[in-house]
């Protein structure tokens, strides 16, 4: 292990320590907020909260059964989808458009709207060239708050299902969303946005800036950039553009809300969105903050904090394995980069390893760490080019997304996915020792098992179905740059990123084509709503059961042994569904390059 790998892994431990140190108090706060307890913040935000309930025609005490909760979620998703899609298509006629950008075509608008409504944040077009300030702030930023809030609502519904005594009630969807936005996401985002703006992330409504180039360049007849003295040059370019806009406010919530959609096409690799090592650090630790706090909140909700810590331990083990793998992979340059020693890839006076697609201020190690976090957490933002990673480096993001939002996962959806796997593990463990399965005092019957299975299998099925459609269609084949195993990796990555609600992209894929927009948009909606519906049904079934007394014969779900079994099941399900596809993509590419 080289010194740089060691230093990066130490840094990873520091990142993890900071996240956990913040997630513990946040978990306590989350439970207090979502259970409607009085807090210091209630004095300021309480009137706003109650005003919203009056406008919506709902009450905090009006708790819902799982079917009404799900209906509310689906109706709300439909309203957001239609509202955002309409806004994006009409942006040419709306204010806040200093660059006079036209409205998006219907297929692009559908894809982008589905993407932000489902917390995926896949972007078929670059923000700075296609989206007005209005679309970014009033359209996308709003969904960056609402989609994690909806996820948090579902997670709390599931937790309440495990706790309530036979009432069948799992909470009020609209109340949950309001509380999550008002008390948790908005204050945190405000803080992070202000630090970001102080560090250099633009936050303004004035139009793009035009600046003088110190060395003018020229373009040829086709518009390609060439040297000024090139005989093909037909026109000199003396100025450059600096895209501005309300970026800091969008960047803060894209990280906190596990969204990931950048203001600019380059996302957090752009020095405008991520100008300094401090912003890079804060944005990176902001990704797992809410998902980890939810996992710990789970222990508090069920009245046994060891239960939350056990799930947290399982997540940290998987995350650690992924971090080590991606850091080691990126610390080495490919033979194509090392070029027989004519390129220096060591660590003296520069970052060692694979600098392709990495920013100098961030370096190789912190870029690799970000990649592990952003895909484990279902965030999808990037501070480096994913396609610029080594083949084995891209394997880690693919596996993390493909496992289906269990390694932290998206806000709320991650905890729900983890509970789905846990119910499965409880069932398997109970069968092995011949006991009737129960989890936290609630009996696990056939209905619960059906729902848990849907939660576990649905994301992988959606991903593989999407990958099949993309690979078999001529449009998919024409969209990949290089073809071969790498071309397949690009399509598989897109299908995985959409179905897994991650949103990161392996660049080079010409993704803004009607068929790809529709397939991926559909995948995003199914990959989110099917597991959520199953989670709510599971919550409803559990909520209508009376808790049973636990005795000495009850299986412990907080022991290291159970955590190990949970890990085995997560890895087994992931391996069985994804290994064949992975073998055709990154693995084939790695071996083709190595031998």
């Amino acid at each position, binding site marked *: 292990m080289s010194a740089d790998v060691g230093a990066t892994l130490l840094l990873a431990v520091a990142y993890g320590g900071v996240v956990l140190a913040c997630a513990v108090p946040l978990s306590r706060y989350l439970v207090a907020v979502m259970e409607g307890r009085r807090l210091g913040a209630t004095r300021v935000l309480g009137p706003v909260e109650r005003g919203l309930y009056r406008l919506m025609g709902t009450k905090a005490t009006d708790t819902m059964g799982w079917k009404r909760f799900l209906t509310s979620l689906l109706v709300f998703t439909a309203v957001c989808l239609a509202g955002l899609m309409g806004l994006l298509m009409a942006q040419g006629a709306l204010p806040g458009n200093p660059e006079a950008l036209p409205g998006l075509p219907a297929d692009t608008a559908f894809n982008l709207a589905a993407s932000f409504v489902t917390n995926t944040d896949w972007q078929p077009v670059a923000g700075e060239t296609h989206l007005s300030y209005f679309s970014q702030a009033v359209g996308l930023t709003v969904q960056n708050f609402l989609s994690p809030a909806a996820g948090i609502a579902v997670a709390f519904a599931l937790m309440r299902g495990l706790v309530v005594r036979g009432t069948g009630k799992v909470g009020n969807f609209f109340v949950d969303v309001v509380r999550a936005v008002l008390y948790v996401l908005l204050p945190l985002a405000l803080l992070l946005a202000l630090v970001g703006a102080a560090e250099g992330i633009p936050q303004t409504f004035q139009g793009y800036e035009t600046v003088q180039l110190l*060395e003018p360049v020229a373009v040829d007849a086709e518009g390609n950039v060439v040297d000024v003295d090139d005989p093909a040059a037909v026109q000199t370019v003396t*100025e450059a553009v600096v895209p501005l806009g309300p970026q800091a406010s969008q960047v803060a919530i894209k990280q906190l809300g596990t969204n990931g959609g950048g203001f600019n096409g380059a996302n957090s690799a752009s020095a405008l969105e991520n100008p300094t090592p401090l912003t890079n650090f804060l944005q990176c630790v902001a990704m797992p903050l809410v998902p980890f706090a939810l996992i710990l909140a789970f222990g508090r909700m069920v009245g046994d904090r060891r239960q939350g810590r056990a799930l947290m331990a399982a997540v940290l083990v998987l995350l650690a394995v992924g971090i080590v793998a991606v850091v080691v992979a990126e610390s080495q340059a490919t033979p194509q980069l090392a070029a027989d020693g004519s390129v220096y890839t060591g660590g003296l006076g520069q970052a060692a390893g694979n*600098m392709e697609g990495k920013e100098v201020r961030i370096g190789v190690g912190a870029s690799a760490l970000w990649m592990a976090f952003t895909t484990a957490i279902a965030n999808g933002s990037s501070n480096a080019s994913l*396609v610029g990673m080594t083949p084995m480096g891209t394997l880690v993001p693919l596996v993390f997304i493909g496992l289906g939002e269990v390694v932290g996962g998206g806000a709320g959806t991650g905890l729900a996915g983890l509970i789905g796997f846990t119910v499965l593990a409880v069932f398997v463990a109970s069968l092995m020792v011949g006991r009737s399965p129960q989890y936290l005092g609630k009996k696990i019957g056939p209905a619960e098992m059906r729902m848990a299975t849907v939660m576990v299998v649905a994301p992988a099925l959606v991903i593989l179905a999407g990958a099949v459609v993309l690979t078999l269609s001529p449009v998919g084949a024409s969209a990949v740059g290089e073809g071969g195993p790498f071309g397949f990796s690009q399509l598989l990555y897109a299908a995985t990123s959409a179905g897994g609600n991650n949103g990161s992209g392996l660049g080079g894929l010409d993704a803004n084509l009607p068929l790809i927009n529709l397939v991926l948009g559909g995948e995003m909606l199914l990959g989110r709503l099917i597991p959520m519906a199953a989670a709510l049904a599971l919550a409803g079934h559990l909520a209508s059961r009376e808790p049973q007394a636990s005795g000495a014969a009850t299986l412990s779900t907080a022991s290291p042994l159970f955590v190990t079994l949970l890990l085995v099941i997560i890895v087994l399900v992931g391996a069985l569904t994804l290994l064949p596809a992975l073998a055709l993509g990154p693995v084939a590419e790695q071996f083709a390059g190595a031998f």
Partner: protein
Amino acid sequence: MNGKSVARGAVSAVVLFAAATVLCGVLYPLAVAGVAAVAFPWQATGSIIEVDGVKYGSALVGQPFRGEGHLWGRPTLADARAFADEDGAPLLWYGPENLSPASDEFGERVAKRVAAVRAAHPDQGDAPVPSDLVTVSGSGFDPHISPAAAEYQVGRIAAATGRSVEEVRGIIRQCTERPLLGALGEARVNVLKVNLMLDGIL
């Protein structure tokens, strides 16, 4: 699930969507912009380096440099098609490379860049070229290079500008930022700032 609960949910959903749009889409960005305009106006408007009324660029956006007397940055894949000013003149913007570092095409590009860099730096002979000079960054407009990549170019810049090697190193040192607390980020040289100082503008 019945018609009445769907209708009731729809009213709540529309109201919540509208309220969130005002709160998170209008008030929140305006509040951040308002504070930023007062507290950090330069940062909030793109960190533009302006001298005597001329805007030379953003400290956060790299530019293509290949001049004899200039410090070179990361290779850029410049694009003049995406943006134009009011008169229709093309404005430069950048994109990522989007090539797998394990692909042959990438290998060919690196070989070409190595040859171009070495041809311009005969004083460095066969010394290995620092990796950031032959790789494209994630954004395609990395404003920085590593201290190693800057040091590699000192001899050429000194010869072309008539400055001493120590003078050039001094300018580079003034434009170098260190890792935060010695642990976060990498040491980096702001290429635009170095070149503005070399040209006597800054």
